[in-house]
């Protein structure tokens, strides 16, 4: 267990902290005290024995409901549980609650939850990021040190950056998505938040690995991520992609990144400037492919198999009314957009073109890593956490994913860690690595965290 993490089984205390922090609205559902007590008593072994964790509300649990932040699944009890949840229980972790999120993970601020927005614990007038904002707030608010979220375009890394904590998206196929409610299946990942790099490393370690229940899960050995702590960076090549540092980037964020890059260099890393030329296309590609996949995945929510059912007498009306009453505005917008780009006459121009450009983005990463670069360093977001209601234009909100969506499109692992403050709010530095090379990423992250020390949040 982490030296920085109390060994004592403090799940009950964490649950009390969650209740005391109810104003954050970080949780949709909290576990019963008795269930937590039983879980603590039965957690007799494992890497996370007795450690309280929070789980995003789109990851299926058998005891707590799984609503995906949506009225259409409010109170839904899954008949099966996610493989990641089973692995957590096997590792002795105690799940204290299900965390708030943008509805069906569609959003970058957690303002789209049917159960109200989550507040940023560092400044309650600002968003915590999204879509996994509840999990980020639970860690940043000191309720628990490890929480789980999901990523389709940056929904772990962006809230981690906004809340001053560590957020990791593993390689596509590294962590089973069995039991993760699908949004965009070719882009969805389960990710982890940690108060420190070590917490995130432990949190990923226990859920990583092959699972026959997920056809996209890959049967490759899982590295020991914590073994990377304290390793010098000699021989590590860090690429700095020019496209992630446009002239429009806030100079203060650039300065924090420059300081972090200097620290990596001082710790032995070789810094190399590289190019990922199709980066600017990531948002157009992402916002075609993700809504297209969502329009198909969310077709199953029609009042027949899940959730509440609108009271009408005809079948088509029941489908339409159930879905319209159950889905919020952003989910409706994306279903309409996704159905449009897949419809006759538009498929080739939008969906097929986006799939081909996605391959170009993937090839960019492959070429850079094949050239000898081990990890890439970039800013995680173009701004610190913004205020509630300040991004009412959907496109403006989508553009906040500009530095994170590429990793989901290419399937490479990526993580964010705090590298300083701007306007009193944290900003994140992002590390990316080649497929299944999470260990390289953690090696750099451990060293950077140690080098920054208290300056990570100053």
């Amino acid at each position, binding site marked *: 267990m982490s030296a920085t993490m109390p060994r004592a089984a403090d799940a009950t205390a964490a649950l009390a902290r969650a209740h005391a922090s109810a104003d954050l609205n970080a949780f949709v559902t909290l576990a019963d005290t008795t269930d937590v007590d039983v879980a603590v008593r039965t957690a007799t072994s494992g890497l996370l024995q007795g450690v309280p964790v929070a789980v995003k509300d789109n990851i299926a649990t*058998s005891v707590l409901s799984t609503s995906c932040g949506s009225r259409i699944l409010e109170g839904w*009890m*899954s*008949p*099966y*549980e996610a493989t990641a949840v089973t692995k957590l229980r096997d590792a002795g972790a105690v799940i204290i609650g299900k965390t708030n999120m943008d509805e069906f993970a569609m959003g970058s601020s957690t303002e789209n939850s049917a159960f109200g927005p989550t507040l940023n614990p560092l400044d309650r007038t600002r968003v915590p990021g999204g879509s996994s904002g509840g999990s980020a707030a639970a860690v940043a608010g000191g309720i628990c040190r490890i929480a789980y979220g999901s990523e389709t375009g940056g929904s772990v890394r962006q809230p981690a950056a906004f809340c001053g904590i560590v957020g990791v998206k593993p390689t596509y196929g590294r962590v089973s998505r069995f039991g993760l409610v699908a949004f965009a299946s*070719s882009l969805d990942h389960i990710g982890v938040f940690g108060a420190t790099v070590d917490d995130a490393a432990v949190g990923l370690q226990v859920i990583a690995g092959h699972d*026959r*229940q997920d*056809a996209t899960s890959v049967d490759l050995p899982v590295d020991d991520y914590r073994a990377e702590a304290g390793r010098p960076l000699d021989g590590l090549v860090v690429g700095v992609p020019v496209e992630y540092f446009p002239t429009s980037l806030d100079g203060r964020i650039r300065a924090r990144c420059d300081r972090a890059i200097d620290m990596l260099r001082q710790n032995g890393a070789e810094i190399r400037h590289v190019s990922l030329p*199709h980066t*600017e*296309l990531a*948002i*157009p*590609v992402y*916002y*075609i492919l993700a809504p297209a996949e969502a*329009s198909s995945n969310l*077709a199953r929510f*029609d009042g*027949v198999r899940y959730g509440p059912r609108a009271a009408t*007498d*005809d*079948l*088509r*009306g*029941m*489908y*339409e*009314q159930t*879905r*319209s009453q159950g*889905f919020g505005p952003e989910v*409706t*917008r994306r*279903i*309409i*957009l996704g*159905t*449009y780009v897949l*419809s006759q006459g*538009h498929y080739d*121009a*939008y969906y*097929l*073109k*986006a*799939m*081909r*450009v*996605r*391959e*170009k983005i993937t090839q960019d990463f492959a070429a850079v890593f094949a050239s000898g670069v081990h990890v890439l360093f970039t800013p995680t977001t173009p701004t610190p956490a913004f205020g509630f209601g300040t991004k009412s*234009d*959907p*496109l403006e909100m*989508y553009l906040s994913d500009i530095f994170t969506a590429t990793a989901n499109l290419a399937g490479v692992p990526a993580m964010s860690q705090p590298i300083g403050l701007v306007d009193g709010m944290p900003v994140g530095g992002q590390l990316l690595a080649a497929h299944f090379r999470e260990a390289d990423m953690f090696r750099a992250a451990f060293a950077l965290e140690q080098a920054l020390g208290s300056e990570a949040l100053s």
Partner: protein
Amino acid sequence: MAVTEADVLHVAVLARLAMPAGRVPALVRELNGILDHMAVLETVDVSSVGEDARAPMPRRPDVVAPVPLVRPLAGFAPAPRDGFLLVPRLSTHSQLGASEGEE
């Protein structure tokens, strides 16, 4: 390739979404703003990428694996019969045969 109100209404039918008339103009505006941003893709040369852009994808055997339920079927589908799950009757299906409670 501007989106029209008729497009939105047509797509809403395809997506099985009831679409209040008052919501349509805003959706048209929002979708056109988003799709304008996507127009940059038209300029990208993808001739080096084949039509099946993600091929070759690995394939698994086409075998159905049972879902490991943590609760018995009756816990969430209270009316199973002959391997099927009974659901409430809709009036539009009244001519199609009996369902639970009307046998």
